[in-house]
């Protein structure tokens, strides 16, 4: 093979190898739960790490919101399959209400109790965060969010 063709072959093989390798890396990265989002079912099944900061999303269970003194509040989150409890000390967002889809960031203390340091609700009632949406669908829940 003459030099030019050999060079071209090397270049083409190099590019193919690079694209293949980076695709593999990206596939790996996509599968990694780098957002560390868990549904109540996954937490109930024990899939979430204890004592590590995680994100939890679900719908607020009606009637589960209990306020203590000093801005302490506990409420339950569900994905209509399992339920977990979230404990939060702080001001809840304006749009927080029962049946609303919310995301809590915090630590999983034990079993099904999450100590949240951040609670976020959405501005648009029809908007369900994509992760929660997927989780709801997985748990057999249809697309519409119950009002």
């Amino acid at each position, binding site marked *: 093979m003459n030099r030019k063709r050999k060079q071209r072959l090397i270049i083409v093989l190099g590019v193919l190898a690079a694209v293949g390798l980076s695709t593999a890396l990206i596939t790996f990265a996509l599968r990694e739960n780098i*957002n560390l989002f868990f549904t109540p079912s996954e937490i109930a099944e024990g899939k979430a790490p204890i004592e590590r900061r995680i*994100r939890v999303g679900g719908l607020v269970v009606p009637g589960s919101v209990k306020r203590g003194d000093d801005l302490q509040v506990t409420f339950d989150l569900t994905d209509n399959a399992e339920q977990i409890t979230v404990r939060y000390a702080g001001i809840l967002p304006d749009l927080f209400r029962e049946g609303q889809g919310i*995301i809590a*960031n915090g630590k999983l203390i034990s079993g099904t109790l999450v100590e949240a340091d951040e609670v*976020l*609700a*959405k*501005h*648009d*009632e*029809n*908007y369900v*965060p994509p992760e929660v949406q997927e989780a709801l669908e997985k748990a057999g829940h249809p697309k519409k969010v119950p009002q």
Partner: protein
Amino acid sequence: MFEYLKRLYHKFGSPRYFYDLTGKMLPWLVALSVLLLIPGLIYGLGFAPPEKYQGNSYRVIYIHVPAASIAMAGYVMMAVAGVIVLVWRMKMAEMVAKSVAPIGASFAFICLVTGSIWGKPTWGTWWVWDARLTSMLILLFLYLGVMALNAAIENAQSAARATAVLSIVGAVNLPIIKYSVEWWNTLHQPASIRMTSSAIDPEMLYTLLTCIAGFYCLFGALVILSTRCEILSREQRSSWVKKLVGVS
């Protein structure tokens, strides 16, 4: 058919033919954009039904969404023109690419400003590092880089080739940047907000489509106008331009 298209493509590569043809096209294009934009914008900004949760403040999407679409399409157009410049060395492509840059940048800027205006009543602040606005800001920076490079190099052909390389690199990076910013947004601002309710009202949809079409026609007209100026400037020593301008 294919032969005809090939011939048309090569014809468009001639500055003189491009100038003549666009001279005939331009009035129609301007008329079309006016015809689409005026009713579209008046209806959208004035008469379309108010949105369920945002009231009247959502109306800016009739400008914001077309501007965003054009800003992104413009960059892709610049990159495609760049490929033509590097591979086929077509002078017309150089001129078109140079014209698109400031116009696309202006639309990106309009998108950011209207996004801000929309943000104030909705989020309460003039600026928020939402994934879309941040990506659009970076797109504006990419445009500015292209414009700055074009301005810095004196030789028109080298400037065109250098900006072609830059546009292509930028275009390849654009999806990566968008993905990174969206991902960054989920980490730092999970409460990302949708612009309208998930089921868009048909009245709003048609108005929006009219506005988008109208703005695209406007964009086309502006690019053609700018390219024609560029043609006259670069071809000023050729006989047909001299005759046109009236210099003997």
